[in-house]
């Protein structure tokens, strides 16, 4: 770094990091040793804004959430300046909602701190590693396959394709229709069900994988197939359901 660059970029200061406007407010309340049930809104608002200005001067990006809170503080401040309605039986403190939010946030912050301690300890506890017990799980668990599991499966296939085809040059564009893939998968399942998803994805290129992904979601939606996963991070199995589908209808799902 040249001298010139130093003078333009200036020093880098590190500030305590806050995890949002409520965190910053709690910090200011603690710092000023204020009773949380009787917050001097004018003083806290000034300090809050001073903090935002300092952040701005340091070129830190101020998230919209912080600005929203600044507006809310000013709103509360203005409400407190209004003359009280003498006729109302119970006058509600304009600060009440903010106080409740602060107290609630503070509780969860404390829970998060205790989770953090547990996280450190529990990271050190290792279970026995996952081993495949030779092929298909004996009993198929119908527990829900999450979208993330599905995306994982496709990502694995994509990565494998990339590794196996390092410098593939695309010579012509093959268009894979969603309907073709639906038909192919459906016909495979007529021969054998369930099949392993990874086996069906083997050797497919990117476009094909996308078409299969969309086609498979359609088949699930139509209720013609079901997806099963025996164990966490386990292989995904695709199976026929009792509900037969009309294959001539698949073409409806092609876009354009």
């Amino acid at each position: 770094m040249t001298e010139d660059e130093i003078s333009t970029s200036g020093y880098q200061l590190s500030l305590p990091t806050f995890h949002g406007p409520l965190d910053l407010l709690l910090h200011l309340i603690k710092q000023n040793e204020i009773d949380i049930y009787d917050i001097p809104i004018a003083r806290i608002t000034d300090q809050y804004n001073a903090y935002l200005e300092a952040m701005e001067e340091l070129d830190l990006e101020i998230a919209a959430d912080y600005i929203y809170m600044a507006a809310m503080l000013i709103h509360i401040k203005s409400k407190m300046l209004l003359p009280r309605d003498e006729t109302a039986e119970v006058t509600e403190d304009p600060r009440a909602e903010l106080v409740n939010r602060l107290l609630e946030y503070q509780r969860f912050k404390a829970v998060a701190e205790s989770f953090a301690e547990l996280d450190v300890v529990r990271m050190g506890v290792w279970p026995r590693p996952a081993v495949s017990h030779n092929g298909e799980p004996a009993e198929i668990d119908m527990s829900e396959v999450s979208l993330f599991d599905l995306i994982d499966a496709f990502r694995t296939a994509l990565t494998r394709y990339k590794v196996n085809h390092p410098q593939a040059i695309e010579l012509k564009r093959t268009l894979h229709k969603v309907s073709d893939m639906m038909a192919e998968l459906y016909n495979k399942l007529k021969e054998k069900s369930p099949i392993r998803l990874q086996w069906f994805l083997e050797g497919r290129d990117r476009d094909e994988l996308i078409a299969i992904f969309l086609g498979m979601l359609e088949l699930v939606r139509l209720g013609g197939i079901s997806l099963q996963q025996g164990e966490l991070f386990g292989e995904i199995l695709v199976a026929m359901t009792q509900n037969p589908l009309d294959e001539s209808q698949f073409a409806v799902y092609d876009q354009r």
Partner: protein
Amino acid sequence: MNELRAALEAILFVSNEPVTLDSLAEALGEKPDAVAKELEEIKNFLDVNVGGFTLEHTGGGWRLATRPEHEDVLKKYFARKGESRLSIAALETLAIVAYRQPITAPEINDIRGVNSSAVLHTLLERRLLRVAGRKEVVGSPFLYRTTREFLIHFGLNDIRDLPRLEEFGDLIGEPMSDDVVAAIGVQSAAVDDQTE
């Protein structure tokens, strides 16, 4: 030779996920009470005689696992970094979902005062949270719940094992850590300058 105990040990040895009491009782044709008693005895035996691992009751089941004190040696031997620690934002979000589930993203944002969508995505990807349907309000936002992975990760057997939220009392007035005090020193000086 206690045959039931030996059979349990064999199953636990091969399982990588917590096995439930009911599934063990069913597989072995024993009463759950008898199996539970045996499991406790295996755990006691391991805790007294075996240093390298223990039997833990977590995520609604039982599994063999190492003890935290061997983390370093395991990492070194297996040349593994291990998963990264959860961020404060992630822990806050987990804490809120744990106590308020099922809960939507806007409700979480409200409590935290900041947008939590990126954090939610990370937690879903790490399988600590899951989507559990949609709330029947305008926009039908997703509802989030904690998973069995969450219980296992934090060594909880059941979500009801969490201490009551009320037990996490007022922190205000508690002494602050040194680095926070140092940081405040810098900052309050800046604030004073501006107010004068």
